[in-house]
């Protein structure tokens, strides 16, 4: 099952939790300096280490549209899509752990879970890491920790991030100050789809910045504690903003558009999505589950719409039509 089909904790504020570990194999250049033969060797070593429980997808054999679908579902990074040499993705249906092979590091092990579940995600990804460790010679240094392509990942090689929905903080213009406070704690806030992307739909990613000199547990505790505090203050802010008749009207209109409109562009979707999600989390809108809301986030993106409907050459106008239909089907 995918994260967006599962239930989770603190779903009114936390959409998902993700933990990622960067690992490399001793004796091989990092993917940007690796020749085709070396990359193939890495791929076969990693596949062997993870065994039959994991399925390998050769990403170089997929169409650009299919790759875009993987990115929209957040199964691979945009960097992975740009990789030039052989690269692929190992996935397991059993535990939701996936491994990007030959992205910027030889391995990027990751696990995404619904709601606030950093510890649980870490445990699953650590289990996969043990598997890699027992079969492969992992690059490590006593002082620098796990050796990674980018020095910003040295140490634990771990990036823990939480996707949060913050309409209260956004509307009361507190994101800027939140961001500067988090920075002081070695954490960072970014838009929904990672580095440099705009915070569409009041959705943000909060993650750890520092990876050296702090243990995995300490990082997870710090991030979880901060998220708990954000959850509390976001809920309070929502209480006060939903007293506004204008906002309640906007929420009801968003539901109306989603239920009855015939064409919805992706920018209109993102704007109205925030209102819909706020409506559900404050009980103004009933009968739409968080799983449905999460599944909307993934399934109405352009590539997934086209792949799902098998209209691979749909233009923008056709996609807007497909999007409206898809939204109706999902929210029921």
């Amino acid at each position, binding site marked *: 099952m995918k994260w967006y089909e599962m239930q989770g904790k603190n779903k009114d504020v936390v959409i998902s939790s993700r933990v990622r570990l960067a690992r*490399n194999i*001793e*004796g*091989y*250049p*990092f993917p*940007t*300096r690796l020749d085709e033969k070396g990359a193939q060797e890495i791929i076969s070593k990693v596949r062997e280490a993870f065994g039959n429980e994991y399925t390998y997808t050769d990403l170089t054999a997929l169409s650009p549209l299919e790759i875009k679908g993987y990115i929209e579902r957040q199964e691979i990074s945009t960097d992975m899509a740009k990789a030039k040499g052989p690269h692929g993705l190992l996935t397991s249906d059993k535990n939701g752990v996936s491994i990007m092979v030959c992205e*910027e590091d030889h391995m990027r092990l990751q696990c995404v879970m619904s709601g606030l579940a950093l510890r649980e995600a870490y445990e699953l990804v*650590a289990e996969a*890491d043990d598997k890699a*460790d*027992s079969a492969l*010679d*992992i*690059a*490590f*240094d*006593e*002082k*620098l*920790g*796990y*050796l990674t*392509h*980018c*020095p*910003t990942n*040295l*140490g*634990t090689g771990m990036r823990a991030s939480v996707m949060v929905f913050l309409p209260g903080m956004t509307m009361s213009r507190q994101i800027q100050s939140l961001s500067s406070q988090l920075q002081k704690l070695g954490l960072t806030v970014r838009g929904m789809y990672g580095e440099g992307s705009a915070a569409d739909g009041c959705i943000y990613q909060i993650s750890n910045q*520092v*990876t*050296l*000199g*702090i*243990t*995995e*547990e300490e990082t997870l505790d710090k991030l979880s504690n901060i998220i708990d505090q954000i959850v509390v203050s976001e809920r309070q802010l929502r209480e006060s903003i939903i007293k506004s008749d204008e906002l309640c009207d906007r929420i009801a209109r968003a539901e109306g558009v989603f239920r009855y409109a015939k064409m919805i562009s992706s920018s209109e979707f993102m704007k109205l999505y925030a209102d819909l999600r706020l409506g559900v989390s404050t009980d103004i809108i009933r009968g739409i589950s968080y799983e449905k809301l999460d599944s909307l986030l993934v399934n109405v993106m352009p590539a997934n719409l086209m792949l799902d409907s098998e209209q691979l050459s749909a233009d923008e106008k056709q996609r807007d039509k497909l999007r409206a239909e898809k939204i109706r089907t999902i929210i029921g």
Partner: protein
Amino acid sequence: MLCQRCKKKEANVFYRESINGKETNYSVCSDCAREMEEKGEIKNHLSHFESHPTGFGDLFSSLFGAVSAVPGVREATLGKRCSLCGASYSDIAKNGKTGCPQCYSVFSGELSGTVNRIHGNTAHRGRAPKAWKEKLDRTALLESLKKELSESIKAEEFEKAAELRDKIRAIEKSN
């Protein structure tokens, strides 16, 4: 190694040129390298390296010390390449990323400032590969025993100190 051109000074610039598959290698001293470049015998040489301070790009420009701006480092780093991946410090500074795990030991001097600027002056704590775990645990144990030893000496608890000393010796011996 002596400069292959003047045969007097130590060679500290290693230059590899590959044109249509034909590879030429020079091992020269920095004076000869400069002269060769002026005469057009080699292209994009020092100017190529020196252009990096401005061309390092976005985020990492401030994190990586410019090769030519660090006195003493420049000459040494110009010729040095990682034997596993072939990266020079210039290659690493250009995009802010290393070429392979070994780069961290080959360029440890050059990279230490960068790592400090990103993470602070600190050392790894946390998970480790199995092969390392035992060693790290032993180091941590030794450190705490040594601390205890110096404390017991200060407190004039010599019997305890002797016990601790024997323990430390035993662990060090087993290393």
